[in-house]
């Protein structure tokens, strides 16, 4: 399927289908209808005389309210107008479709059900930054509390909730941190498409995700999430009403990722520009697509795990209750069958961004495009076969520890290929040390440390000691924060001129970079030491023997915090008042740099025709 036409998109009258319902709906109407639905559900599911007395009545009403809020919001913002019209045999008119795309509506379109992929990209970017800020704030509270032994700052209940809320907020934010903003805004332009394959689903993926945010925040007012982000059963079944917020968040989020994953995958498969064969697709597009495609089979198991948690909590179904024949191991399996692929769902786009950046800033072709593809594919393939390495010490079938150790350690080979591609690209080049390129060097170090410590953890005898300790926490922060988040921030610095029309403030950017990266090393070096010394993770209080390592960690955390505040300031300030960016400030060869800012509604006036890959840098090319 190709939708490319050589027609001009300029000089079109601004659509104004005044009589259409879609012009009256926006985020505000969504919130109103959503809240009405939530209250209606809450009162409809209240205990009555027949069922009163069961402990789970409150869970039922709360869960129903949260899920109905989401549905109500989507109805209120007009998400179902298109499908409904289609159902009765009348699709939206061309004028209405243009209206939905936000044509000529300025800033208002960011608060509407807008199908333009660039609007959705910005919505994701702002949403992700807000989530990272909240999650980061909670991390600062955790580290402040752990500055000295004894846990005097925060009580155990609040602390456990902070750990759970920080975890799930960051995981959700990190899953969408690259594929949300850049996968939506940049990727369609990169492949020469006029929009995503399913623009309405694109808007749906964002607004569904949006409805999960207040649900998650409601946990604070319902007693928190005391289970960590892993939400192991039977602890989750025992937990108070705040747990409903966790369950509902995951149910909603799983729908959003399924819709987004399907849409991005379809777009890349079906809507590439003429001549863009598979071996000419920019590497970021490959990495992002593999990431979302990996999420498609992974997330349903998490959703199922949460459905069963919900029914255990509401109806006493006992899926995870050993007293009635259930098993907590069932939960652990369902969770980690999602959980480990999810780590690579987060990591791959971050690395792919850096591979996109490296050739531009060393003016050399990407080294071994094929090795990069094999690296991504190898990781994605193996990642679905390794989940039980999280369960070595669970006691579940120890005889299978050996096989899972083998599959886990095999991941080091495709990961090695990713390193080879990055190193091969910078080798014999003169790296132009702009902000995006600094990110590449930081990630080489961080991913190296994350990778090597991952090999220890994959080994069963070593994991017998390290599992559940601060060492694990430090390890996965090196991969998720040190590699994936740094990659995404490098992507923001790289594509900021295209997404905002302005340059990111360089002095502030450099300052933020050094604060975050130096602070990061100090923070997690301290945490590695604490873990090696034997401090369990998720503890509000620790013994005096871990005093120094924790003090170091907290010091590092403050540096990271300062760095991110500076970065946030730089982004906001540059977005408003930064220097106007030229069309192609880095001299890159991918298609997004061939379009002006603001990017026209349908991206290209003339459909691009691709004759080579975008890495034709270097002498002799």
């Amino acid at each position: 399927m190709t939708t490319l036409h050589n027609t001009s998109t300029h000089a079109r009258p601004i659509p104004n289908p005044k009589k259409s319902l879609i012009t009256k709906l926006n985020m505000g109407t969504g919130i109103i209808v959503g809240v009405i639905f939530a209250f209606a559900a809450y009162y409809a599911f209240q205990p009555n005389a027949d069922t009163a007395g069961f402990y789970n009545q409150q869970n039922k009403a709360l869960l129903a309210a949260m899920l109905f809020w989401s549905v109500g919001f989507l109805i209120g913002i007009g998400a179902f107008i298109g499908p409904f019209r289609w159902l009765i045999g009348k699709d939206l008119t061309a004028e209405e479709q243009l209206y939905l795309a936000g044509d000529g509506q300025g800033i208002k379109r960011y608060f509407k059900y807008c199908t333009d992929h660039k609007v959705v990209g910005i919505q994701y970017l702002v949403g992700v930054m807000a989530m990272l800020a909240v999650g980061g704030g909670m991390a600062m509270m955790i580290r402040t509390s752990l500055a000295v032994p004894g846990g005097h700052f925060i009580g155990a209940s609040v602390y456990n909730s902070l750990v759970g809320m920080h975890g799930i907020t960051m995981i959700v934010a990190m899953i969408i941190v690259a594929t949300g903003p850049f996968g939506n805004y940049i990727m369609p332009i990169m492949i020469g498409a006029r929009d995503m394959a399913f623009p309405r689903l694109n808007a749906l993926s964002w607004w569904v995700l949006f409805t999960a945010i207040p649900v998650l925040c409601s946990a604070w007012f319902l007693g928190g999430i005391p289970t960590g982000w892993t939400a192991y059963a039977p602890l989750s079944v025992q937990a108070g009403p705040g747990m409903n917020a966790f369950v509902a968040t995951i149910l909603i989020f799983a729908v959003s990722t399924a819709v987004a994953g399907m849409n991005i995958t379809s777009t890349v498969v079906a809507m590439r520009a003429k001549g863009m064969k598979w071996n000419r697709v920019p590497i970021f597009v490959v990495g992002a697509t593999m990431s979302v495609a990996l999420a498609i089979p992974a997330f349903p198991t998490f959703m199922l795990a949460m459905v069963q948690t919900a029914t255990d909590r509401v109806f006493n179904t006992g899926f995870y209750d050993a007293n009635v024949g259930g098993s907590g191991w069932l939960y652990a399996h369902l969770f980690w069958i999602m959980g480990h692929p999810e780590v690579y769902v987060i990591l791959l786009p971050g690395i792919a961004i850096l591979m996109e950046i490296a050739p531009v800033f060393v003016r050399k072709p990407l080294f071994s495009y094929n090795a990069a593809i094999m690296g991504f594919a190898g990781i994605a393939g193996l990642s679905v076969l390794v989940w039980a390495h999280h369960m070595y010490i669970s006691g579940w079938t120890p005889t299978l520890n050996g096989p899972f150790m083998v599959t886990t350690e095999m991941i080091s080979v495709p990961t090695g290929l990713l390193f080879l591609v990055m190193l091969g690209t910078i080798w014999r080049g003169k790296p132009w040390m702009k902000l995006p390129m600094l990110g590449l060097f930081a990630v080489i170090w961080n991913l190296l440390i994350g990778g090597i410590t991952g090999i220890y953890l994959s080994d069963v005898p070593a994991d017998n000691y390290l599992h559940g300790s601060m060492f694990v926490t430090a390890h996965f922060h090196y991969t998720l924060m040190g590699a994936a988040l740094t990659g995404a921030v490098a992507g923001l610095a790289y594509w900021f001129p295209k997404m905002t029309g302005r340059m990111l403030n360089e002095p502030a950017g450099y300052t933020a970079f050094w604060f975050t990266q130096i602070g990061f090393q100090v923070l997690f070096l301290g945490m590695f030491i604490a873990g090696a010394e034997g401090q369990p993770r998720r503890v509000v209080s620790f013994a005096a023997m871990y005093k120094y390592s924790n003090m170091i960690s907290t010091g590092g955390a403050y540096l990271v915090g300062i760095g991110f505040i500076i970065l946030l300031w730089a982004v906001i300030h540059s977005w408003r008042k930064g220097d106007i960016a030229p069309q192609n400030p880095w001299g890159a060869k991918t298609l997004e740099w061939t379009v002006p800012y603001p990017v026209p509604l349908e991206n290209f006036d003339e459909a691009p025709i691709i004759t080579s890959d975008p890495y034709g840098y270097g002498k002799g090319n």
Partner: protein
Amino acid sequence: MSNHDEELTPTPGQRAINLFRRTDVQRALLFTILWTAVFVILGLYFYPKWMPEVMSRDMKAMERIIVGFTVISAPIAGLVMGIATQAITNRHKGDTPPPDGPAIRTNGPVVMVWTVVSGIFCLIAVVWGIAELNSMALEATAGSKEALHVQVIGSQWVWSFKYTDLGVESDKLMLPINRPVEFEVTSEDVNHSFWPLQLGVKVDANRLQTTVADTVPTKLGPIDVKCAELCGLYHAYMETSGKVMTTTDFNNWVTSNGGHVA
């Protein structure tokens, strides 16, 4: 910075010599050696320094693996950092892009060697891990007849230990030296994870399930017992202590607590 005429040189030997004459290669090698040294020191010196005292067979195996893996992976990590550091020393400053570099799209032999070498390292890690697992399993089987059975019960938020063969119950983990011990671990409520730090073993406590961990304490001294699985409000405080004692002391402890020595 360096001359690239070596690509025209005919013989492989001469090409290799020319390669090592290039300043960028020499610099990358130097950085590789320095970084390798850093990682080796980290493995040999710092890791053992941070770990608690080695008081059992399993703790020894764990330490051996972590130190060994660090040292073995040091040359690869050193090479990665060596190339990256060399690139940084060769950086381009200014507001315009750097001059074009050589258009190297791939290098078959390099990709092959890299893949094979990382495969070999992966294989070493796998074989080593499996061999350790196997020897632990064999030792556990060999020692199971004379093993001391300790039932470990986790409940929110205390550990208790039942020495079923000896008729003793305690909230402290007391063990005799050099006698195999088998922990039979269970939970009365949610998941816990039994972690006697200095013994290097860990296994989850699950409701209505018995999971097993075994080891041989090899050194006298105190033990810290912790819970390594978030188990609710006072998870952080679910800890106790214990001791590895001489056989005589252990027997005395058993009898003084109302038990009988087998």
